[in-house]
């Protein structure tokens, strides 16, 4: 069960809705068009405490769970907005919370909770290691009381809007470890301090996601910024991924509900052939079908979040909820596009923008193919294909 009562969850929902009303769809259309970071929105979310939802009260956060965090992100996306600009500030700190030492928690968590420090860049993916994380080639070599980082990351989002980066790098070459998942380590990199040793190049994409390529050249990380045990970074990343999957599922469900809301409204209003187009089952059924899928996916998301919040294993549920919600929402996105006819293409109607945005979650942060293979190999015990 959620830490909050149903009433409190409802209050969270209503409050986030009220906040989002201050950022109507033309705000998002404009930031999208100009490829601008929605700074004002993120600052408001920060100031009103929403991004500190998962940080325990003793470190200045709200101390709530994945369930409440999911509700917040869902409402942002349902309003027509895009929580992707700020979601990582919520959960990236989970690595410090779960695997960091007390000194690291004291140093970082209160400042992340207040927004004084942004930790919303997470560097894993590399040009030659996308889905295959253990093949990353960025190295961190220990010299005295520092690690020296060299290598390259790609698709790292929000680096230009973050002070810190959670970085995964190889500390022992793959050839020298028994298991390929060993020898990877997780660090807190102070990007502001190391500005001179980092090059950031924005990637132009079909959505406004502030994603970049990052090059490290003798970038320094003090040894005390190693999270947990050296060489055990992969395991630590995995535990954070369940949180990420549940929250991505929530954003996707928010998108799905947005498409359903809009499609229902339009199908009731738009009259062609002397009747509302929603009267035609060719229009009505795809909306109803997508709605059913979204509601079912939301149940799986709720299950995953509740397992997470009670500290139980939620790997299968977190992955399945990410898959089910993104696929359901993609169906809803297409149903909305169909319903809007030509007007779905007009930027003024926002459907095309949300359509582009909703497509991302099928690919990132993990592709649905990889989720499917996880279920096959790890949940069902089928033979491994890689």
């Amino acid at each position, binding site marked *: 069960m959620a830490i909050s009562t149903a009433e409190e969850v409802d*209050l969270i929902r*209503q409050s986030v809705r009220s906040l989002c009303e201050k950022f109507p769809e033309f705000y998002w259309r404009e930031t999208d068009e100009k490829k601008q970071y929605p700074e004002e929105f993120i600052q408001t979310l920060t100031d009103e405490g929403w991004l500190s939802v998962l940080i325990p009260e003793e470190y200045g956060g709200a101390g709530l769970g994945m369930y409440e965090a999911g509700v917040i992100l869902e409402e942002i996306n349902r309003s027509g907005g895009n929580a992707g600009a700020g979601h990582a500030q919520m959960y990236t700190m989970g690595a410090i919370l779960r695997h960091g030492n007390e000194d690291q928690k004291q140093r970082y968590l209160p400042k992340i909770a207040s927004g004084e420090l942004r930790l919303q860049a997470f560097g894993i993916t590399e040009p030659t290691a996308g889905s295959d994380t253990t093949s990353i080639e960025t190295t961190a070599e220990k010299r005295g009381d520092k690690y020296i980082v060299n290598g390259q990351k790609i698709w790292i989002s929000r680096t230009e809007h973050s002070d810190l980066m959670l970085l995964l790098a190889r500390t022992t070459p793959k050839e020298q470890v028994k298991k390929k998942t060993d020898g990877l380590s997780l660090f807190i990199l102070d990007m502001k301090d190391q500005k001179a040793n980092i090059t950031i190049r924005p990637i132009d994409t079909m959505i406004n996601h502030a994603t970049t390529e990052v090059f490290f050249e003798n970038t320094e990380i003090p040894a005390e910024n190693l999270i947990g045990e050296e060489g055990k970074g992969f395991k630590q990343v995995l535990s954070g991924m369940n949180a990420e999957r549940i929250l991505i599922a929530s954003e996707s469900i928010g998108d799905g509900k947005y498409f359903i809301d809009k499609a229902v409204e339009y199908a009731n209003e738009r009259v062609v052939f002397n009747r509302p187009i929603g009267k035609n089952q060719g229009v009505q059924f795809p909306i109803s079908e997508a709605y059913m899928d979204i509601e079912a996916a939301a149940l799986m998301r709720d299950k995953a979040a509740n397992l997470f919040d009670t500290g139980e294993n939620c790997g299968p549920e977190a992955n399945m909820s990410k898959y089910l919600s993104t696929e359901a929402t993609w169906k809803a996105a297409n149903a909305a596009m169909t319903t809007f006819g030509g007007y779905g293409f007009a930027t003024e109607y926002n459907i095309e923008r949300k359509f582009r945005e909703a497509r991302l979650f099928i690919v990132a942060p993990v592709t649905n193919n990889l989720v499917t293979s996880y279920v096959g190999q790890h949940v069902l015990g089928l033979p491994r294909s890689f």
Partner: protein
Amino acid sequence: MNIYVLLKKTFDTEEKINVSNGEIEDDGAEFIINPYDEYAVEEAINQRDAHGGEVTVVTVGDEDSEKQLRTALAMGADKAVLINTEDDLEEGDAFTTAKILEAYFEDKEADLILGGNVAIDEASGQVGPRLAEYLGIPYVTTITDLKIEGENVTIEKDVEGDVEIVETSLPLLVTCQQGLNEPRYPSLPGIMKAKKKPLEELEIDDLDLDEDDVAAKTKTIDIFLPPEKEAGRVLEGDASEQVQELVSILKNDEKVL
């Protein structure tokens, strides 16, 4: 300063009203803080922040009213009081509510009581003024600005679109009108703090009242929805023909002339 807010839960403004057997169906309906009471909560919080003291939100309602009280606490009020009449009263009117509140305020030293201008459901606009009369304190309705300096109070009051400036003094009761302020919504720390704020529950018995003391003074004979709006009629012809037709309709069909 001892500040009190009178708050009522009302139907969500988005809700469609259904009437059956002379009663409004409220099964499954969403409820909100009466929108005018939100101005009162906001103003109370602002006045407290400016002058110090405490804000107590009071409602006469049922168990479900707790939700609206919690919302007010999350906005920033300090305490909440639910006077639960669910088990004691079948029906009530503005008199009932004002009488109950009078009993509640008997032993309180309120400096300022704020309410909404009207509740959007029954729209009597009487609870505030009646309560002030019972308590023997001045009151000003439909206020759009409130300045307090010591005991002296300067108020801007909305009079059908014009502004009247009223000077008065504490203790005082005001009812709030749109334009007074921009009500906040709860922040996450606000919601977290509200969990720990006191919410006291009373019944009319605790206020030494009987059902008879507060029995409604009015009787509801019937409740019905306004007739559905029919399609309009577009008059044809040039201006003088249209005027003639209009006058004829008003005289002969509608019989209003």
